[in-house]
């Protein structure tokens, strides 16, 4: 028996923001008709979180439902809870056309914390990360430099970023480069005028 290891095993960096690979994170992809009662109750039942609207993240403690597309949710839970969650959902979805797959190992999650978090993200993504476009509880799928990523704000200073596992190192290096000390932009966190 061997212990599973996440792609970067909690690698961390401290610069304009703190960056940390979150380690093993339960991630389930649920595809289905998001307006169908069975699909909604499977998702909310597995997490205790409310059903998210378009581009929303609904959390309940360590569990969350992220709206990924009109027929796709990303379900977050403890890594050890994934099999149980999928089993529960499959029961709830009995006879309904839907697909629940464990993607915990296919993806890697990072946490960015600090007042400059929006500035650091804006160096890498073409998506609008201004407070007008992205508030805590809202998710955006876009790209970070040359790879796809999904990200959302936990609070005004904390981003969660999810990318594919194979490019975890690339994404970590990107984020660290963007957060290098001395590369402040002071755009979203502009110091107050004197």
């Amino acid at each position, binding site marked *: *028996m*061997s*212990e*599973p*290891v*996440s*792609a970067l095993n909690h690698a961390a960096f401290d610069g304009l923001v703190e960056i940390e690979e979150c380690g*093993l994170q339960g991630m389930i*992809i649920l*595809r*289905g008709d998001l307006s169908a009662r069975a699909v909604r109750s499977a998702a909310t039942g597995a997490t205790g979180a409310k059903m998210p609207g378009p581009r929303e993240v609904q959390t309940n403690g360590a569990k969350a439902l992220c709206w990924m597309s009109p*027929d796709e949710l990303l379900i977050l839970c403890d890594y050890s809870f994934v099999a149980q969650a999928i089993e529960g959902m499959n029961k709830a979805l009995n006879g309904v*056309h*839907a*697909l629940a*797959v*464990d*993607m*915990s*190992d*296919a*993806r890697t999650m990072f946490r960015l914390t600090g007042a400059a978090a929006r*500035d650091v993200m*804006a*160096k*890498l*993504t*073409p*998506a*609008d*990360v*201004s407070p*007008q*476009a992205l508030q805590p509880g809202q998710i955006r799928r876009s790209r970070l*430099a*040359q*790879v796809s990523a999904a990200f959302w704000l936990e609070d005004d200073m904390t981003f969660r970023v999810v990318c*594919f*596992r*194979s*490019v*975890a*190192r*690339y994404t970590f*290096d*990107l984020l660290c*480069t*963007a957060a*290098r*000390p*001395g*590369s*402040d*932009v002071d*755009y979203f966190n*502009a110091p107050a*005028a004197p």
Partner: protein
Amino acid sequence: MSTRIATHGRLIDRTRRLTFTFNGQDLHGHPGDTLASALLANDRMLVGRSFKYHRPRGIVASGAEEPNALVNLGTGPAFEPNQRTTTTELFDRLQATSQNHWPSLDFDIGAVNTWFSRFLPAGFYYKTFLRPRAFWKHVYEPIIRQSAGLGQVPRERDCDTYEHFNVTTDIVVIGGGIAGLLAARSAAASGARVLVLEQTAHWGGRAPVDGGAVDGQPVGSYIDTLLKQLRAMANVTLRPRCMGAGVYDHGYVLGYERRTDHAPEASGPRHRLWRIRARHVIAATGAIERPLAFAGNDVPGVMLASAMRDYLVDYGVLAGRRVVLATNNDDAYRTAIAMKQAGADVLRILDARDSGGGALMQEARALGIRIDCGRAIGKITGGKRVKKVQICAQNGTGGALEAVACDAVAMSGGWSPVVHLWSHCGGKLIWDDRAALFRPDPDRPPFGADGTGFVSTAGAAHGDLALSAIVRQAHSAGNNAAQAAGYKTKSATAPEAETTREAPLLPVWLMPANANVALRSKAWLDYQNDVKVSDVRLAAREGYESVEHTKRYTTLGMATDQGKLSNINGLATLADALGAAIPAVGTTTFRPPYTPISFGAIAGEARREIFQPLRRTPMHHWHDTHGAVWEPVGHWRRPYTYPRSGESVQDAVAREIRNTRQAVGLLDASTLGKLIVKGPDAGRFLDMLYTNMMSNLKPGRCRYGLMCSENGFLMDDGVVARIDDQTFLCHTTSGGADHIHAHMEEWLQTEWWGWQVYVANATEQYAQIAVVGPKARKLLEKLGGMDLSPDTLPFMAWADGHLGGIKARVYRISFSGELSYEIAVPASQGLALWSALIEAGREFGVMPYGTEALHVMRAEKGFIMIGDETDGTVIPQDLGLNWAISKKKDDYLGKRAQQRAHMTDPDRWKLVGLETTDGSVLPDGAYAVAEGVNANGQRNTQGRVTSTYHSPTLERGIAMGLVLHGPDRMGEVLEFPGTDDKIYHAKIVDPVFYDKEGEKQNV
């Protein structure tokens, strides 16, 4: 001589002294200086040589339009050529060297070109190097390359870092002069988010130099107030040292921020490229003064009147002690007045207008300056600096009336609005006859996504040159932009500036108007590319009527400054020579960037380790530490082979193959695509995607399948496993996973959207390890946890279970012909399983093998490889794969295409094996020749090699290829000429070289 004086210099800090070097000599300046102002302060009038004639050149301008004063900056990994001294902020220990001369700036051999200038006319290169054609590559090109180019190419890798920054905002104001700031204020009052970009380190533009008052305040302090207001607004961002470089479709704007050019010791990226998406763009980019075209207008010491004023007011630098000024407008009088008041001798103002100017002229006269109306400069004498001005009548041919000795000449030919950013995305211009300038036509703006104009102009860029008009127009431009961005404007009264009565400008495109040919051929239009009035006239005589053609023929406006300074002079000269009106000749196209931007800024963070994403499998680190030689497969890196110390790559591959065939080998197959396809219509869907039948596959079983594009061509292959009634797992090639996933989604979303199927790309969820060889089962049994006996898990079956305590799915499939299991485990336990297999396999002689061994072993078995046997023109039928094409299905993607006449042609080349008669290895891609030659005199062909290897198993070269009627020609020997001049002979054989009966994989 030019010198620093004790007064003026609003931008410099005289309390600190900076030391810099120019061509190795120590010189001094102050913080706030540009390199240009510091050079002038040290009487460095000669700063470079021209491109073609190597003429001595000095500083002409004070901003981005400077054509002459380009230098090499820095050394070693920080070296950069072609940097404008006028936009280079001085810092301590700056090192600059001049360009375009040999052996030295003062004595330059290349200057002989100026004596031969008669033989270097417009179109010289086209005319001279036309014939003979055979000389193009080896004679002419090296000569031209040797003599072309300004600065040198950097030799070392750039030591600096760069980055991008993405902003979505409402309004971008490009230019932080008074117009830009006013527009920003009125726009921001509406609540719109406003980003203001200013290319220099200072706000306010030239207004503080030109003077005047706004709302009763001196313009300088008015700007300070304005800045204070803007800084207090949370919705306004001001970015100095950030040039608006380009405006693109749908409100995309590039900003080029030079973060540390002025402070190389500072940390962080040197340049930052702002990628801005805005609803509306205001170009408040000002205007550029035009030179006058007179003989010797390029002699060091001749500069724009506005530049002379800038150097005085901004930097306390007097460009000359004894100054002559030539103008066709009133603005230049400001320079004369300022120079006089600063203590210079203003010897003469030559006003080309017979009746002279307005109020400013009176003011100059009152200061005792002599003003000659209807007069012009006939010629400048002096080589490396101005010595004398010959004065003539503007209406004459250049006959000198008198000569005045002086050390500097100021010239003003009027102003050209900087319309570049307006025009980048298609904004049109109108010719303003009265002011003799092209201004933006507000009725024909660049159109955005909603079909309305998304760029407007403010201030001088709009064509308004008087302060009173500028402030009024800029204020309303801001209001209009806010409205265009969807905000309600907060009405505030427009600021008022006092007006100076100015006399109209007289368009002067040549000085004197009827200058003779000797003068015309010394009257420069494009300084940087050495284009003179005579060149443009010659082009017109030779039939060049289009301004775009003339530009390319004469190289007018094609240098690094892109004709900012004097393109208008050039096309007015062309219009004059053609007898056409200026608007009829038109302008050349304005293209971004406004001034050259660094490659580093464009590349951003994408350098070195993060130049491109590298995809790594969970076992990547193990491979790396065990000596893997890498092969790129898409963005993946896969081990090609694992050479041991002292072992060649070839030997390592051979060892890995022999060991796998005789004992057991491990392959990291994690990169294989793994797509989960689920739903009531999954079987039907896969029947459409694969050429063979998938819907009748039994759960627990695997089937090899082929996928074609709608064109009929083979695009991917792989093993499909049926998981349960509604669920399939489709393996794709390593390079094809993302593409095939997208392919599936495309058909589901855009053609068969009623079908109930969901697809998920689970490629990276699993680490997959192929355990291959006669001892594979023994090794897995040692790990324990699953019954892998042939009865329980026969060939082409799969099973779930645990191996060595790790949850695993085992596919019994083979791409090598050996007993083989592919084991998929969660990626987070991939390395654990791999390590366990290496450890447990020691007693069986386990070794990892790489992609080359994989390739050779599959070729030994005659298995095709997507990308080797296929190239986008090959259909499965070409490859003898008819057994994998269902005859029972009415339809699948590619079926109809495969019925087209060309696809059913019996003469299509077909797959065969090839064996050289002497056992050598056929060259990859070699063609089999046939009798006769084609229309081009080349040998006819009848086949080609698609895969070729040395087989360590068979100890000979083996190959596969596509050959005309190949399967019917077994035993025939073909000729394959190599690029090494050898002719290879190979016999057509069955493509399966090894274990033809397939017994080994089925034990």
